[in-house]
């Protein structure tokens, strides 16, 4: 059951990711990215992390991607539709970086072939379980991350303020 769900999601995720990169139309790319983000939420569900799965949809697909689509539509679409040939620098650097990434990923996968996880305890992945973990075991990392977000927000306001 889980294996079937995983493979269906995997095919969908890879296919939509390819569409994101290959499609010439930025809005279609963004919509494919929406499909991709929702399938990743599906992966979280297969891993029994239902709270993270729901947040994935709300935050990434529901909020961030809507902003991306908003910006794409505000920009002039006709310019983007013209096929652009990448510069020579990009043309050579792209495949090399892709190869390096594939090697790193492949090594990581081989090093941890078929890991065995303990069966999830009842209540695993719910908001309550996650909240207790965040505010006890991972208290300091959690606070540091929220500080980082505040800093990013202050930075964004500062940058935008200059032009107001």
């Amino acid at each position, binding site marked *: 059951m889980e294996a079937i769900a995983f493979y269906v999601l995997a095919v969908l995720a890879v296919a939509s990711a390819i569409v994101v990169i290959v499609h010439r139309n930025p*809005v279609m790319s963004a919509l494919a990215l929406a499909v991709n983000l929702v399938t990743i939420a599906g992966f979280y569900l297969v891993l029994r992390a239902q709270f993270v799965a*729901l947040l994935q949809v709300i935050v990434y697909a529901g*909020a961030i991607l809507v902003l991306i689509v908003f910006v794409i539509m505000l920009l002039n679409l006709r310019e983007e539709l013209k096929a652009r040939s990448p510069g020579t620098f990009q043309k050579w650097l792209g495949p090399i970086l892709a190869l390096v990434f594939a090697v790193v990923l492949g090594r990581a996968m081989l090093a941890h072939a078929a890991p065995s996880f303990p069966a999830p305890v009842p209540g695993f992945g719910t908001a309550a379980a996650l909240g207790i973990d965040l505010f006890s075991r991972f208290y300091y990392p959690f606070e540091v991350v929220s500080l980082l977000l505040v800093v990013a927000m202050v930075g964004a306001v500062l940058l935008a303020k200059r032009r107001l």
Partner: protein
Amino acid sequence: MTVSDLVFDVIVSLVKIGAVIAVLFTVVSIMTWVERRLSGLIQFRWGPNRVGPLGLFQPIADGVKFLMKEEIVPAEAHKPAYVLAPAMALVPALCAFAVIPFGPTVEAFGRKVPFAIVDIDGGILFAFAASSLGVFAIITAGWASRNKYALMGGLRSSAQMISYELALALSVIGVLLVSGTLRPMAIVERQAGWFWNWNAFAGGWQILGFLVFMIAGFAETNRAPFDLPEAESELVAGYHTEYSSMKFAMFFMSEYINMTTSAAMAVTLFLGGWQLGFPVPFSGWPLWALQVAAFWAKVGALLLFFVWVRWTLPRFRYDHLMNLGWKGLFPLSLANVMLTAVLAALGWVRR
């Protein structure tokens, strides 16, 4: 889980899904009639009263008309996205209702069956996730039509939905604070007893949250006075200008389903869900039948309120809308979160 459990679950789920979809579409067709009759009443005219008694068969006539209308796809439109957009509107609208409990958990055939399609731990989040995907339909429709008015409508609606989703989500946090759970069924069960135990009243002191939720709900469902994405006088019909026949009907239906879901969420979170609001001397199936009826009666009352507001208030101007969202509702809902947190910390909220 044994095989018989699995078979039982699948059958019960299918029955519930079928029943909910049937009820939702019935509510939609009744609401189109109510909307037009009530607007007639408010504007001192008749409204549709020709087809059947009181014009009640008007939705059937409208449905036939939608099916018979010619379907026009603009030559310049981006075809796949254009065809997909109405489905993208309808599917999330239907999905969001899956977690809403419209009755208690009852014993049937020796098993516990909740009166909700699914009774999951993160139910409230699921409803938000589903409704947050609905905005893609509007953006896609506006963009794929290759029409300036439609694109403007789509842009406006995405900005509006992002702005008001914040206030909407924050207004719910107060309820979550006093309930201590994200499970809709548990939230409703906590509001048992007399009606002053409901979250909007003494059950959680969430009257401010309820107000913000309702106002943001009007904006989220693109209803007047926040129906800027389809402001006729400026944008013809906004994002669905270029849609005709059944494709338009799907947008139309999803608007009414979203409205119903929004009302059902408000009832579940703030107005006691399927709780009657007063004790009754009997139990068993008469009680839960009455409770299901109570839920739909409350939803119906809120839907009437939606219609009433639409035909009473004039439309907001765009900058007023943004000001209200960011400078009015957003700080108000934040204040509500703070207030509720203080109340909960002082132990003044009933647990």
